[in-house]
């Protein structure tokens, strides 16, 4: 508890220091607000345009969460097939890596072309970039079960379904969470990137990515900063939500989750 307080104080101190540095740079170099707005101006932009900021935030959050959840479901099913049928894994696993290496900025225009702009396209883009880490980590967790444990189940003539449900799936949970944790980080980035290309179907309202484009074109640098702040908040909340779920489900038995336990 004492350590937590200390961490909090130092975090606040560093934040204050950064704000001071930011403000001093503006004073020293006499920068105009459209190049670098002061912290006060950014704060003002946040308050003055709060409703539209929140609207953008929610839209991006919906796309990121939707894409992440879809990737979790589809990724889990694919990983199950990969784990149960090695020949399918050997055949298709290389394409998973392909999925991971192909740049999303190259795919986004195609999706825009085929599906038009809007929440659906952005969610699809997020889904695509979240899929690979979930498939890769979950598959690894499902197949890396100790040979002796499988033998133990075989000694009781356990069925394939029993081995899967009582052994492979619980064993894969930590890996699954690792995959989701990685995906949750890139989900927000993916959604914003997607919005840069396919952000809005309605004039004026769009996700953070769309609003960033708009604000930068209008030289509303203070609002641009506010949007970046909103994106950071969103990324953090995704990451910590997954961290919390991971701790909640695994802390009783798994080593990796215990680290948070000891804080």
């Amino acid at each position, binding site marked *: 508890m004492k350590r937590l307080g200390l961490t909090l104080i130092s975090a606040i101190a560093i934040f204050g220091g950064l704000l001071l540095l930011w403000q001093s740079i503006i004073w020293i170099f006499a920068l105009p607000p459209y190049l670098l707005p002061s912290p006060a101006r950014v704060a003002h932009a946040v308050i003055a345009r709060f409703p539209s900021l929140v609207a953008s935030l929610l839209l991006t959050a919906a796309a990121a969460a939707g894409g992440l959840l879809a990737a979790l479901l589809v990724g889990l099913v694919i990983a199950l097939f990969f784990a149960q049928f090695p020949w399918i894994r050997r055949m298709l696993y290389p394409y998973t890596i392909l999925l991971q290496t192909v740049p999303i900025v190259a795919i986004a225009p195609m999706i825009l072309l085929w599906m038009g702009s809007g929440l659906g396209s952005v969610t699809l883009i997020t889904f695509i970039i979240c899929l690979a880490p979930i498939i890769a980590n979950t598959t690894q967790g499902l197949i890396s079960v*100790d040979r002796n444990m499988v033998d133990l189940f075989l*000694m*009781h003539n356990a069925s394939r379904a029993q081995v899967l449900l009582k052994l492979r799936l619980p*064993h894969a949970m930590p890996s699954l969470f690792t995959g989701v944790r990685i995906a949750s980080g890139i989900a927000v980035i993916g959604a914003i990137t997607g919005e840069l290309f396919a952000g809005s179907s309605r004039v004026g309202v769009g996700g953070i990515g769309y609003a960033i484009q708009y604000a930068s074109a209008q030289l509303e640098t203070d609002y641009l900063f506010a949007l970046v702040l909103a994106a950071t908040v969103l990324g953090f909340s995704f990451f910590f939500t997954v961290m919390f779920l991971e701790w909640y489900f695994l802390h009783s*038995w798994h080593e990796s989750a215990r680290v948070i336990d000891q804080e």
Partner: protein
Amino acid sequence: MTTRPIAVPAIDFDRATKRYGTGATTLESISSQVQRREFVSIIGPSGCGKSTLLKMVAGLSPITSGGIAIHGMTPQKARELISFIFQDATLLPWRTIRQNVVLGLELDGMARETRNAKVDAVLSLVGLSHVAGSFPRQLSGGMKMRVSIARALATRPQLLLLDEPFAALDEMTRDRLNEELLRLRDEQSWTALFVTHSVSEAVFLSTRVLILAPNPGRIAHDVSIDLPFPRTESTRRSEAFERTIAQVSRALRSVSAAAVATENGASISDEARTAGAHPA
């Protein structure tokens, strides 16, 4: 050979042979019988196929030729009679101790009430009732191994297969678990086939020790251990115990020395070695 129904041995090895794909022989023509209630240890230099032999008995590794009968049945059919204890405790970390011990009964499809009663009984038998709700990571190595034993005994096996179960434990814990194992054997009557690297452990536990020689794996010596039961700490201090250990160690050394000699003798071809091993 006549088979009398009462005298069907716990394990009957009949020229059991194991070859891997390339033709290298892991175990060559193993013939021996283990009677019920016997405690037989298998000892030998690494690579002689001890663990493979155990997996063959469990039906986890198919034999190439010959046969193994467990209570007159094939290994696969006899699985209900067998429990396997692995080198490490092999506990499922997401299950509590209680849930781990119940696993076998659960997989066998036993009703919840019946299996709960059985698990309670075996937990108190092994002295683990107080940690029933703990998770494996909270337990020491020795405790984990006791959980593993409890899980194996919960299904009331006729035959216990143990693959170096205490190898990773410190000597004091190992000694204590050895005595515990013999006490459990007194309470429940099972046959044991025990693979180990430790001569003193083999001698302390067993009624018989099989010494395996490598390349190809075969039974080189079959030593009866005539130390009286119950065996306790005072057994370890007895002269007879020391003598038996010396005897087994000598036999093991001769086997190991021969193995090293063959390995060094690069001129001896594989065929010649295999041919030489055949007791024509």
